[in-house]
């Protein structure tokens, strides 16, 4: 789960407190929280993560490592698996490990074909880490999924 998704989940668990309320209660610069939560690339640094870990009452490390696994990096891995047909292993929030070929993906979910040919639809925010990890910084526009209809 990316830092953005994790912050979204924490916010939901804290009664849907708004980004503005969080910024008012902490020393975060205006607009930073929203960007950290919503951007697909990694936004934030150790200091901002430390502030938010304190606000939500979670360990700093539990939050910090997620900054290195942003949504965009997952998109890169999904693109690579879709293009090459090579299997991708997803480690999910609930400890489940799913390996298979990516059949489709969009910005909300990904469908993985398992070895028994069944399809499992995984919510992207439930993905903690994945293998192999694709390097690179930018997801070009042609790598976004093309919606049909």
């Amino acid at each position, binding site marked *: 789960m990316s830092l953005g998704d994790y912050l*979204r*989940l924490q916010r*939901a668990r804290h009664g849907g407190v708004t980004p503005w309320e969080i910024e008012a209660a902490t020393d975060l610069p205006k607009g930073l929280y929203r960007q950290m939560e919503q951007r*697909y690339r990694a936004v934030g640094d150790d200091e901002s993560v430390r502030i938010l870990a304190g606000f939500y009452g979670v360990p700093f490390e539990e939050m910090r490592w997620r900054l290195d696994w942003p949504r965009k990096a997952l998109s890169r891995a999904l693109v690579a698996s879709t293009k090459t047909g090579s299997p991708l292993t997803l480690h*999910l*929030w*609930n400890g*489940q490990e*799913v390996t298979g070929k990516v059949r*489709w*993906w*969009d*910005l*909300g*979910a990904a*469908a993985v074909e398992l070895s028994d040919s*069944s*399809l*499992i*639809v*995984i*919510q992207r*925010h*439930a993905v903690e880490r994945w293998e192999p990890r694709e390097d690179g910084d930018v997801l070009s*526009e042609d790598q*976004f*999924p*093309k*919606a*049909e*209809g």
Partner: protein
Amino acid sequence: MAENLWALREQKKLSVAALANRAGLPIGLIIEYESGQRSIDPRHLGRLARALYVEESDIKLQTDRRPPATAVTAPREPARELASAPRPPAKPRERVSHSKSPPRPPAPARPSQITYLEGLLKRLNRNVADLETEIGRPVADLDRPTASELIKKLQAEAAQAGPVNRHRAYLPEAVDAYEAQYLSAAQEQKPVLHFTLFDGTSLSGQVTGFSPYNITIRRPDGSETTLNKLALVSYTKEAAA
């Protein structure tokens, strides 16, 4: 077949305020669109479609007037004193016109109307020149009501021509089409899906509805449960027994 905005909104059980909020548009604008006072700006069509979870082609650009509610009212009883002493028939009121100036000419067509008109013509494989010959003047010279009538006419033609396979904008928040397609198929074919939640629980049921944020399922006992996607880890079709 394209439907009126108000009809789609009511189907989705949304208030005007909720729709405005979801689409990120002012409430006043939604009211104007729904009352047919103005045709929907094509730039807002995508937002409204996403907020209602329909295709853009499902929304009529020029909304029809909502049919009046058929309220049944009991005939009024005349007041007692009036019943005993009938009044002489009232003189019909004369309509007094306060405006001395002649009626204003209709406003020129909005640029958005022209743009939409051109888009409709493209969909119908017709060109602007043919239409201009048909109506006897350049499209750019159309007035607002005439443009509106033309749009309605062409919309009807386009609806008869069949649905259009539209490409949605490649914006991150818009690209949820694959899951939507999967869930649409599940809603139609009604397989039992098995959902795994973040808290470790799991649920099974048939999809009865969904939005970008929720999935509603009918459980085996007939009850309905709405699952927030944020609470979901994954789902899969249950293996046939």
